[in-house]
């Protein structure tokens, strides 16, 4: 596998925290150049110049970290293009600084709480899809009693487990397949209303992703994604 392919692989692990999708499949990576010496330049683009600076920062900063970890990579430059706070973000990411340093006086802390909030939303949204699929041929009591080991290891399930690890929620094979916010199993008599609420979260994540894709396509109509995502 070429160094560029491994760099792209690494970028595929960078998630838009608000949409819970990789920046590569969202089309946010507009170019990725690797020099003979292994120096990498990645350009990121977003659907609007006003996309939230906090999420933009997380993606740019995570991209730099992910690419920097790839063996053989030299210097890493990540450039967020066409964004109203691009200059601040690019400068802070380049010097490895935190969000607070990018916007002095405009934050009260780092982005950990924001990231946690959106991991929770992402987990709820993904669990709703898993639950809906299970509901096709299982009754509510059976679904609530299911363990992780009983789920097929689909990418959706794997992502849920990763989120549960990151959130400190139980994720062992005998942990409940679906969990509430505190990590406990869901009671069968509450499953339908839980699903209604969780499904709304799925819709929110999915429709935001759709809006972002649609706006990105309008913003860059003649520049289709240059980056081939490794299979």
């Amino acid at each position, binding site marked *: 596998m070429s160094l560029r392919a491994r760099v792209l692989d690494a970028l595929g692990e960078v998630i838009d925290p*608000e949409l819970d999708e990789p920046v590569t499949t969202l089309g946010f990576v507009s170019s990725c150049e690797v020099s003979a010496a292994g120096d990498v330049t990645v350009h990121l683009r977003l659907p*609007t*110049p*006003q*996309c*939230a*600076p*906090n999420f933009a920062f997380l993606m740019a900063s995570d991209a730099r970290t992910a690419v920097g970890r790839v063996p053989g990579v030299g210097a890493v430059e990540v450039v967020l293009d066409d964004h*109203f706070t691009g200059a601040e973000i690019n400068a802070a990411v380049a010097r490895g600084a935190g*969000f*607070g340093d990018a*916007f002095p006086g*405009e*934050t*009260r*802390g*780092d*982005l950990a*709480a*924001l990231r946690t*909030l*959106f991991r*929770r*939303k992402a987990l*709820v949204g993904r669990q709703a899809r898993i639950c809906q699929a299970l509901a096709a041929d299982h009754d509510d009591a059976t679904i609530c009693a299911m363990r992780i080991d009983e789920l097929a290891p689909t990418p959706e399930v794997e992502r849920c487990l990763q989120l549960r690890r990151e959130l400190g929620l139980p994720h062992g094979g005998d942990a409940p397949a679906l969990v*509430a*916010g*505190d990590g406990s199993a869901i009671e069968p008599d509450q499953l339908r*209303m*839980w699903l*209604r*609420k*969780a499904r*709304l*979260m799925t*819709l*929110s994540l*999915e*429709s*935001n992703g*759709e*809006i972002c894709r*649609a*706006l990105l396509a*309008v*913003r860059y109509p003649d520049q289709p994604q240059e980056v081939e995502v490794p299979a």
Partner: protein
Amino acid sequence: MYEKDGEKFFIVDTHIHFWDASPQNWVKGREDLAKGWIECFHAYQGLGPADTHWTIEKFMKYSEDDFEKDVFEEGKTDYGVFQSTYLKYWYTDGFNTLAQNAPMAEKHGGRLLLNGRWDPREGDAGLRQLEEDAKRYNMKGVKLYTAEWYNGSRGWTLNDPEAQPFLEKCQELGIKNIHVHKGPTIWPLDKDAFDPKDIDHAATNFPELNFIVEHVGLPRIEDFCFMATQEPNVYAGLAVVVGGLMHARPRFFAKVMGELLFWVGEDKMLYGSDYAIWEPKWQLEGLLGWDYPDETFSDYPRFTLEAKKKILGLNAAKLYDLEVPKEAQLAEAEKTTEPAAEDDAKLVEVDNI
């Protein structure tokens, strides 16, 4: 009134603009922000049908004739509500201010309602201005844009102590419709800038005011729905939902409508075209003819004729005290339906789901 298949519809477009984003109106040194803003709006227009797209030149500044044709002739609007958006940080005379909208409202004798604005960061001077505006323009509503930049601040929330006197003043002056738009640059930047929780608190503290959450809280529709279920005075403004999704993403539009009808209910949803981002005609006709695309949506509430009549005008007529011609009113029996029970959404926080 719009007539279709023998049914009469009273049309209130709760979200229209007559703006000036032309280069002559750009603040020197902030041209990039002024240009970026209108280009972003223009990109949203791209989500509507191709034959309704404008050039960026027309989009920056359209004429009175354009407005009258699009809103009244083609859009069949009985009443329109101007939502002022000042943005004086980068538009010299403002983007669409009360003063800019007033001559047009005057020309159309009562068919265009003028909503003003306030900003808690303007303090006592702002309160005095609100009082003056309320008298001069007979305001029944305001549009609040919490993401607006002002003197180095990148936004505010309805919870700020400085905002409370303004809400009290609205209650006192009978400005009972508070339209709120959440934007992407609220301070502090490390929080979720779209979180509508501050509206929840304000709605509880000011029960006589109605809070219309524009664009149904998108991109936080879940937070908005849970809140609207708990608060009887919180409404869903459909601007952008219809314009941005109905044509470009019809299946998502169907899900969003289904969820709104379930959680918020047809009595608390308000049609708005967000003209001139999108022309009203295709949105109105689309909504009138709309139904769920297939049976996979069968557990959502139905979009009935009554629901259409309410959402397209009757609900807004109640909020703005507009007289509805008899033939467009509903029969007694059709008047209310129950959305999701309040208990269902009680204390919904993502940690509790």
